[in-house]
């Protein structure tokens, strides 16, 4: 029986290949290219609430036009792995600013996190009750006896209950289902009659662009007190100590917002660049549709204004529904401040 020669050469080749693969992988660890900024620019990480989308347009516009660089800030957006992450990492000191939702901020403060909102990106709720024509839901009252899907957040369930009660429907007659964040899929598959949690400037637009003609009822038109859907949050400490940076940030952001207003399509292009999953047509439509909601109703108030009476009313609503346990209007410092907005403050 002939003996086969040891394939030492083949072993060397494979070992070399594996070594090369390792080297390449190790090299990958260090290939994150950060923007080379002039020595004066301070790194400033902003954690988004979700994947980059139309609501973040002012931020990306300000970055792209160099407005942050001009005030000495090197702003880096970070995408979270889920919506609860931004406030956690902000409180832990890992990021400088988080984009979040007013309800979520109040929940976090109720749990003792020392955070404060310094500006509102969107002045009204975007959360809506959305239904397809095939579900035969024209108004909230039509939800009786049907199944409604939410993204599983506690305050969405409370919003649904409030909407039903305002329409005179007993909440027990409506089945609630947690469909995660795939609300559109749930509706299209016919598993739920309607959803609460989709945005009138996002999911509703997606459906409209698919020619599905959805029925859209924003929650603040259904009996839920108005709140700021998207807010910029920082640690209370920073608000006390780094007021200058925050003020500069908001100045640059305001200029970015102006850019978005004057050229929505260019702004949409920036979103698509930051998020390849985003689609130009949808993002442009979304930016245009959202514009009115990004400005305060009272023209004399600056961009990013947060309405104290609206915040108070919403805080009381959350307390009444058992979502929080201490009254944000009376316990400690207020959850928001307008002092850093352009033209405001001491």
């Amino acid at each position, binding site marked *: 029986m002939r003996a086969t020669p040891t394939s030492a050469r083949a072993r060397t080749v494979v070992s070399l290949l594996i070594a090369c693969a*390792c080297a390449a992988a190790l090299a990958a660890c260090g290939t994150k290219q950060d923007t080379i900024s002039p020595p004066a620019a301070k790194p400033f990480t902003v954690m988004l609430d979700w994947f980059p989308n139309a609501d973040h347009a002012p931020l990306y516009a300000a970055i792209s036009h160099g407005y942050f660089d001009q005030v000495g800030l090197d702003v880096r957006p970070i995408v979270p792995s889920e919506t609860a992450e931004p406030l956690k990492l902000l409180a832990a000191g*890992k990021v400088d600013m988080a984009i979040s939702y007013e309800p979520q901020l109040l929940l976090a403060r109720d749990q003792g996190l020392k955070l404060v909102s310094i500006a509102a990106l969107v002045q009204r709720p975007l959360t809506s009750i959305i239904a397809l024509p095939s579900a035969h839901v024209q108004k909230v009252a039509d939800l009786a006896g049907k199944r409604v899907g939410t993204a599983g957040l506690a305050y969405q369930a409370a919003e649904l209950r409030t909407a039903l009660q305002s329409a005179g429907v007993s909440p027990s007659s409506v089945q609630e289902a947690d469909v995660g964040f795939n609300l559109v899929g749930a509706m299209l598959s016919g598993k739920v009659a309607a959803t609460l949690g989709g945005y009138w400037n996002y999911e509703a637009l997606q459906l409209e662009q698919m020619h599905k003609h959805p029925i859209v009822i924003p929650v603040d038109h259904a009996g839920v007190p108005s709140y700021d859907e998207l807010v910029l949050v920082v640690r209370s400490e920073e608000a006390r100590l780094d007021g200058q940076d925050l003020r500069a940030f908001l100045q640059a952001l305001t200029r970015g917002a102006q850019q978005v207003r004057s050229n929505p399509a260019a702004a949409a292009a920036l979103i698509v660049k930051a998020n390849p999953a985003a689609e130009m047509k949808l993002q442009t439509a979304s930016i245009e549709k959202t514009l009115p909601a990004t400005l305060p109703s009272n023209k004399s108030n600056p961009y990013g204004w947060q309405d104290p009476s609206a915040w108070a009313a919403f805080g009381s609503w959350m307390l009444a529904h058992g979502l929080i346990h201490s009254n944000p209007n009376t316990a400690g410092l207020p959850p928001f401040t307008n002092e850093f907005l352009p033209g405001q403050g001491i």
Partner: protein
Amino acid sequence: MTRRLLHALPAAALALALVGAWEGYVDLGLVNPIVLPAPHEIASVAWSNAGLLAANLELTAQEVGLGVLLALLFGFVLGVLIHLSPALRRAVYPLAVGSQAVPIALIGVLLVFWWGFGVLPKLFVIVLICFFPVVVTTVDGLSAVDPDQLKLLRTLGASRWQALRFGELPAAVPAALSGARIALAVGVIGAYIAETSTATSGPYAGLGHQINADINGLQTPRAYAAAAVLFLFAIACFYTLALAERVLAPWAHRPRGESR
């Protein structure tokens, strides 16, 4: 070479049949394309997004390559240590078992808190998911070593370390490699979990992250295209390892059909 291609024929045929059935299922209107797109649509989207898919595949491949390699090293070393020290085994083994039940979504935030927004948290997740099969197979492989061979080595004058080096470790390599095969197969889904449980900066963050973003952006066909790339990548990894195994541990393979 032709023989290898012939070996691949049954799998290719089966895959083709399944894809054909899938295409029919969608074209007949039995399911809404937003929920399950047709294969032809997925293929055309994959073609037009080849650049994006390639960029994300490169990132995921790097994570899987490095992560699984680290898992193999860590798992193997831990397996050897557990084999050598019963005290360590009693201390570490139950914890290793429990580590498999840790919800990654929960610790994702912690990992980012420790190591930032780069690739390190993802590597940790992959190592966590993949190291355990390697530990188990290594320990089992070492325990199954022929005790007579170890006796023989002792009479030849081998120290404990030499017995390990000449006798136990090489004997355990086939078992460890089978653990490696499992680790690699799990590693690809591990990369998906890692990418969707840890925060990222930058538009390219691997195929898993892209699938998530595409699901959210209602780009379902492209999400499926990315999933298909992951599927094929996992197969390629598996068979590459099988090839490496044949070269590095040829004694574990008896050529079929040769009589003794």
